[in-house]
């Protein structure tokens, strides 16, 4: 019944080691090539940014860039106070995270801890679809729906005695509705990534907590959330980076008025909105205004880089390792 297997040195074994090695080498080279393309692209972008930024700072003092309080690169009297654009970016992103943090975190907790598996299976993809809506749609949603809604809300508040006097007027372009919509836009990011972090907390920790007489709420807030903290924080930071770099929504809804301050009711110009403005205009290549967008782009890049580095550090520092 049993068939004799060919012995190890039988003539039936004729491995083509040479060919395997050659194929191995080719496959490896192809992978390396693709890896190099993506790295080279990144390096190219960064180098271009650096090159043009250096050219920019050859004409504008870096001190002025950091301390000036006016941003008028396209005017006759040019001023380059980046702080003006940063304040606007900070404002819209700040409002966005105020909206997205509670909304995203609560939906994450709800999905992973309270929803039944069936509900979770349906709701999570729906939530993630929200992240797939094109940002230009969010932009005109903010401009044509949220702003008028807020305006009529503000007008209604203004009819109240006493407090009505304190209600400001909301302009057609404003940081508030841009920020709110930006917040809605990044909510799926916070929710989805936080949910992953919360869901991956081992069930044994929940059991341990319940076995000590903890209620569900105590288990969630005191055991599960702290255990998922590093994942939650990194999701929030990623969302902030996204909000800072987001362009269409703020360009469409927040306006094009470089203005220093944190008033959310008036038009402002974010860093990204400025880059759009110059890119769409007829600014000649090589001019100072042209170089300005590289300096702004560099600033934007550095800001998000710092955030990502912080997130990287935080996750490494606080990640809990379970077997």
């Amino acid at each position: 019944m049993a068939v004799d297997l060919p012995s190890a040195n039988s003539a039936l074994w004729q491995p083509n080691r040479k060919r395997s090695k050659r194929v191995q080498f080719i496959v490896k080279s192809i992978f390396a090539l693709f890896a190099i393309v993506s790295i080279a692209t990144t390096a190219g972008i960064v180098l271009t940014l650096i090159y043009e930024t250096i050219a920019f700072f050859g004409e504008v003092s870096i001190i002025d860039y950091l301390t000036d309080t006016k941003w008028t690169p396209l005017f006759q009297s040019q001023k380059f106070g980046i702080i003006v654009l940063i304040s606007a970016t900070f404002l819209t992103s700040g409002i966005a995270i105020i909206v997205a943090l509670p909304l995203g975190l609560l939906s994450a907790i709800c999905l992973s801890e309270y929803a039944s598996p069936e509900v979770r299976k349906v709701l999570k993809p729906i939530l993630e679809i929200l992240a797939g809506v094109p940002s230009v749609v969010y932009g005109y949603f903010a401009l044509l729906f949220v702003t008028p809604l807020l305006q009529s809300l503000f007008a209604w508040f203004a009819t109240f005695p006493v407090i009505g006097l304190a209600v400001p007027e909301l302009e057609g372009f404003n940081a508030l509705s841009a920020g709110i919509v930006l917040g809605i836009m990044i909510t799926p990011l916070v929710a989805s990534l936080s949910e992953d972090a919360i869901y991956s907390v081992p069930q044994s920790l929940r059991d341990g907590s319940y076995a000590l007489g903890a209620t569900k709420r105590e288990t969630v807030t005191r055991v599960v959330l702290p255990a998922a903290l590093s994942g939650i924080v990194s999701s929030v930071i990623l969302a902030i980076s996204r909000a800072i770099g987001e362009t269409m929504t703020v360009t469409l809804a927040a306006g094009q008025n470089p203005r220093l301050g944190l008033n959310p009711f008036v038009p402002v110009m974010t860093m990204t909105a400025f880059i759009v403005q110059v890119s769409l205009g007829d600014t000649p290549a090589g001019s100072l205004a042209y170089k300005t967008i590289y300096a702004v782009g560099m600033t934007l890049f550095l800001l998000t880089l710092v955030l990502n580095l912080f997130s990287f550090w935080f996750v490494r520092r606080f990640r809990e390792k379970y077997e």
Partner: protein
Amino acid sequence: MTQVSSSTELVTEAVLRAQGVKVYYGTNLAVRDVTLDIPFNKVVAFIGPSGCGKSTILRCFNRMNDLVASARVEGKITFHGRDLYASNIDPVETRRRIGMVFQKPNPFPKSIFENIAFGARINGYKGDMNELVEDSLRRAALWDEVKDQLQESGLALSGGQQQRLCIARAIAIAPEVILMDEPCSALDPISTLKVEELIQELKQQYTIVIVTHNMQQASRVSDLTAFYNAEATEGGNKVGYLVEYDRTEVIFQNPTQQATQEYVSGRFG
């Protein structure tokens, strides 16, 4: 059909009493007709092959099965004579009085101190927390090893220390009963020995039910042993049942059931 033998004299005062307990997961019957008493301040071992329902029964005693959506418990389980599954019984309060230690050490990702203090805090402990932490760690024979690193993460301890931390955490909230679900199965022999010594200590003050795959362990630490077995049904599911429950030396030296005899002598399982 098998008979459940049980010498009446061994039941002094039943802390926990299971009567005709059946547990279903969904529509599958997992364990059938378990009837046994857990006497006061004794160590009861549950032994048996995998899938015989010993852990399932254990988890009925502190209503941990409530957390499994599909689980359903039939029959009656009483704790000091009161029905544990009555509608006026709060499972959260039950779990404070009936503590549990799990198969894999599961310390919280918090400091050693906070691991102990957590249970006390959520249960509204108003006394001196430092004292409670020290006392619990001493009882779990861990104090000397960790007294200088109370603020370090519980996850930094070795597996055996982690398990003793979990035991300390369980006794910190002053339970009457401690349920242990294969507490040594993830530990090395030396750590296992320490936990076993600890169980010997703890039985002065607590009633302990321990599930174990290790028959030597059952014979070393327990006063009473319950042997469970499983049988396959037509549908291919395994249903666990209690074969024999008696004093540990009877189970190991002179069991009345053949299945018990075969299991404890290592012929199957």
